[in-house]
Every structure is written in C-alpha cells, then in structure tokens.
C-alpha cells in the first residue's frame, strides 16, 4: 500500500485554479522530487498535504487514513519552509523541542531525541543560540533538525536550499540525500531548480499549469520528455526547438536549414527538439550516427570551465550547443563550425498539442501515449 495517496486534488483561489486534478502516490520511504517553474503551485500542493490550506476537491490519504479534513497537528507531518520559519524568540534547543513538547512527549525523552538529532546534524554546539545568531546554512540545519526530531510519517521540503549560496547548496544537497538514506523517511521535496531535481530524486514529478506533466526517474524525464513543457523545462541550457513539417518520412525546418530523415512519424506540423548536449563535433560520433551535418556560424561563446555554451546561427535560426572546452581552440566568435546530430536523440513534438511523437522502445515499455 502506498504511504501517501493524493486523489484528484484541486485547489482554487477564487476563480483562479492553481491545481487541477493531481493524482499522486508516494511509496513508503520514497524520496519524490516535485519540480516545476515558479508559481506553478508547488507550495500550494505542499500546504494542502500539510493541512495548512483546504483542498477545493479531492482526497488525501496517509496509509489508509483519510486526512483530507484533519488539522495540520493531526496529520503527523513535518515541513521545512523555504524561509525556515524558525521561532525567532526561542533558542535552537527550544525550536527543536517545541513540536515534541506540544505533543506531550516527556521531558527526558525530548532531551534525548533533540541531542541525538543535533549530533547527527552537527549542530549540538548551537543548541543555546537564537536563530538570528546563526548563519543561513546553520539555520537550514536547525530547520531540518526540527523536522527530523519529530520522526513524522511524512517530510515536506519546500525549496529548502534556495536561500543558500551555490557552494553550500551542493553540499546540503548531498547531505540531505545521506540523511534520507539513513532515515528512509517518506519525503516530498519541492524545487524549481531542475538540476537539483535531476540530481536528488529517485523519482521526479514535473508540475506545470496545475497538472502533473510527467513522472518518472531523472533519466526518463531527461531522455523522454512527454511534451514540450517538460522538454523545455528540464535541462540547462534548455532544449533547442525548431518548427517544421514532416512529410513522407522527412522533417524539414520551416526555413529549410535542417532536413532529417524520420521513421514511423505521421505527416504534419511538428517541433523538433534537440538538446544542446546532443549537438556534437564530427569527430565525436561515428559516421553512421551523423544523421544531419550542419554548417553554422558561431555567434557567442560562453566558457563555463570544462565545457562551453556556444550559440550557433544557421540561416537565421539560433541553436545553443554545449561543447567540450578542448574544441574551442580552433574557433572564435564569428567563425564557422560544422556540427553533427545524432538522430536517435531527436525529440519530435506535435506543434499543436505539444505532445511527444517519437515512440521509441522506452515509450512502448512505459505505455505512454504517443
């Protein structure tokens, strides 16, 4: 039996429908990452699960217990807010023990658990400080500690790393994953950062426009996005999108710059998606993988370190590509460059509905509608 079940959750604020029919099942001990652009309703969904707001329609089950109408305190859930929401007038110890005391755990037990969790998170020396005497990273740990110490049946994290600097963010990411391996607590982790989502989730749920667009492993979502929204959102820099037409197993972009053979795809207006990482130098691919060879002009080069993002222009169309730094030697902005594509990595989408058209082996296995 799944640990948490959301059935057809709807949430409206006045006339504005923020969530429109969310169905989701979380298995015991699973770490689910909920990702979507800002304003897509991620926080709203967490607040509904926590009981801080009431659903407009739908059901929330924990185990087989219907908690839809229960108060937050009756749901046995812990949440880490984006701004940490530490009680400013209480010490770290009081912050961490507050929930246990409110639930009537006896004093000795409270103390034992707070100290145990504080040691686990390396914050035992901070126990007597007030939140305002802590750095952002320490506040973050306290907020996590306050959730962990309660040993709840579900953890909710609302963009917990978004207020940290980049370095600390990657460190905390790893640490949170370690913590999860240790505790095996059922967790919903919300982020708007697709990279964070890819690196953390056993399972990713992509939310946009109030509905779940896709769920799957990071690989599924990266290699087989089910529609344009997911394809455009996951991956950085984002996928190149070329408008064009398929007729007679041949795709031609509108301006005719790119022409490739297709297999088993219906005729019609389509959008071809190519990830920047899938644009290669001729030497990188074997000759039979050269599905399409293009001669482009280099517009901009942005060096990131080991890799660079280059913006290419082909007959007025812009393409972004990621190439390895060693290829930069012979080229400069304004010069010409020959690139090749691997046609197995092409993503075709219906230009009208935005749905994915390729049906490869993966799609058959997953039973996803093409």
């Amino acid at each position, binding site marked *: 039996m799944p640990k948490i079940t959301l059935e057809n959750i709807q949430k409206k604020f006045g006339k504005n429908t923020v969530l429109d029919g969310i169905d989701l099942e979380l298995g015991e001990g699973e770490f689910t990452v909920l990702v979507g652009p800002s304003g897509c309703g991620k926080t709203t969904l967490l607040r509904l699960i926590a*009981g801080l707001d009431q659903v407009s329609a739908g059901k929330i089950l924990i185990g087989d217990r219907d908690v839809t109408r229960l108060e*937050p*305190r009756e*749901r046995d859930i812990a*949440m880490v*807010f984006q*701004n940490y929401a530490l009680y400013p*007038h209480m010490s770290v110890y009081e912050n961490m023990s507050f929930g246990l005391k409110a639930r009537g755990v006896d004093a000795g037990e409270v103390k034992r658990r707070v100290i145990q969790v504080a040691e686990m998170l390396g914050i035992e020396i901070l126990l007597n400080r007030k939140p305002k005497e802590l750095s952002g990273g320490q506040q973050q740990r306290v907020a996590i500690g306050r959730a962990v110490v309660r040993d709840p049946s579900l953890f909710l994290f609302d963009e917990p790393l978004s207020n940290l600097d980049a370095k600390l963010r990657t460190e905390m990411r790893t640490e949170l994953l370690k913590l999860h391996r240790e505790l095996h607590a059922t967790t919903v982790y919300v982020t708007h950062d697709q990279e964070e989502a890819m690196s953390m989730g056993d399972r990713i749920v992509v939310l946009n426009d109030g509905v779940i667009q896709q769920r799957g492993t990071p690989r599924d979502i990266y290699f087989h996005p089910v529609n344009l929204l997911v394809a455009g959102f996951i991956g950085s820099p984002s996928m190149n999108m070329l408008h064009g037409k398929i007729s007679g197993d041949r795709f031609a972009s509108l301006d005719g710059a790119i022409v490739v053979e297709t297999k088993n795809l219906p005729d019609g207006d389509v959008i071809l998606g190519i990830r920047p990482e899938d644009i290669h130098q001729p030497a990188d691919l074997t000759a039979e993988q050269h599905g399409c060879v293009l001669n482009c002009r280099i517009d901009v080069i942005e060096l990131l370190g080991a890799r660079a993002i280059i913006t290419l222009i082909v007959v007025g169309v812009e393409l972004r590509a990621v190439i390895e730094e060693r290829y930069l030697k012979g080229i400069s902005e304004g010069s010409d460059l020959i690139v090749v594509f691997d046609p197995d990595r092409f993503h075709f989408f219906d230009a009208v509905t935005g749905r994915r058209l390729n049906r490869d082996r993966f799609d058959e296995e997953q039973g996803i509608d093409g």
Partner: protein
Amino acid sequence: MERFQHLRGRTSNLFLESLLIVALAVVLFPFVWIFVTSLKPPDLVAVPDVWIFEISGINWRNVLLESNIPQNIINSLVVGVVTVLIALAVGCPAAYSFSRFKSSAATRFSILAAEMMPPAIMILPIFLLLYQLSLIDTLWGVILAHLTFVIPVVTWFLIGFFDEVPRELEDQAMIDGCTHFQAFYKVILPVVRPGLAAAAIFGFVLSWNDMFYALILTGGESKTLPVAIAGFWTFRGVEMGKMAVAILIAIVPVLIVSFFVQKHLVRGLGGGAVKY
C-alpha cells in the same frame, strides 16, 4: 571639485544643524519655562521674565501634600492601565485577524474612522449611555469612553507588527502540534512583543493625556490628572506655580517611557497601511 562638494556638504550640514537647534529650542522652551516656574516662590510665579530667584519648594509641597493631585494621579493611572489592558485584549486578536485574513486598505482605514470625527460628536451619545448606566463620575465611565479611541488606535498600531511576522511561523507551529489559537499566543504574540509594549505605551499616553472626555465625564473624586490641572485655573486667577508642578508630573513619565520605545512607536504609527 571633490573638495568643493565636501565643503558644500559641510556647510549644508551646518545649516541643517542650526535649524534643528532652533526647532529643539522652540519645542523644549516651554518645558524649561514650566520647570523654572515650578521652583519660583509664589510672589514671582506670575512674573514671566524673572530668571534669577531663590529656589523654593513650596509649589511642590503644596501639590504633593496639600492638594488632591496624588488622588488624580492614581485615577489617571488606573484609567490608563485598565484601558490599555482591555484595549490589548481586544486589539491583539483584532489586529491579527486584519493582518492574516485578507483585508483591503479601505477596511483597515475604517478602523480609524471614529478617530477622524471630532470627539464632540461622540461625547453626547457616550454621555447619555453612561448616564443610563449610572457610570457618570466614575472611573469605569472614563475607561469606557477612552476605549472608544484607544482600541482602534492599538488595533491599527498592531496590524503593522503582525504583517511583519511571516505566516510560515504560525503554520510551522500548527504543524508542530498547536491549534491555531495556541500558535497565536505561543509563537506570534511573543514575536510581536516589542510591538505590544509600544502599543501599550501609546494607548496609555492617549488615555493619560485625554482631557476632553474626562472633563465632561468626571468631577470630584474621579477627576483625572489633566482635569485637575485645568482646575488650577480658578476664578481668583491661575495658580501658575502649582499648575507647573502638576504639568511636569503629567508629562515627564510620558516622555521617559516614549523615549525607550520610540523606534517601535514610529514603526507602529505606519500601521497596516505600508503594505499596500
């Protein structure tokens, strides 16, 4: 060029400073004058431009030991404290509600609507009501009258403080096992404590300073301090020396306490309006 600007900055600072000094002198002079007056012997009290005289404690002795002023001070204190306690008990939950449940700027301003009217409009109905309740010339009567303006002001004052408390704080408390009301008094109230203190003092000062309602609603034993001060203006003339002493007693505590909460006072006076 840079040096010139620096110089100009300094001269304009000098100019501002002298303005400030003038303003301070204008504001503070009456206090100094009253203080000096309170120490003058009776025969010099009515002569304003005498600055050198033998200091006399007679006015202070008269007021503190031989007049009703101590009783009036106690009356004012009782009225002020009780008014503030009731106003906080009512105003806190009210302000919290205005802050948390979406309220338009117009709704918030309506809290102050009664304040916008001249008190003369309010006094007649209040007088009649209190008369029916036999509360004329009692401290409870004055307290009720003061509540009509202290509650709105305290409420207004506190909205801004509640607005600054992130909602997540009470959400967290509720997830941690509190009811909404427990979250309010265990987490939110302690967080806005500076605001509560400032609101309490502000409300107290309003009540302490009120002359209009107290003058009409009290007399005899229930007179408050401002009314008693006005009482020194008798048909034999103004008893300037005693009046000066009473005035000092009336204003000094207010000044001292306000000084300690000035930061929060300014914040609160912006009320719930700033967020819109």
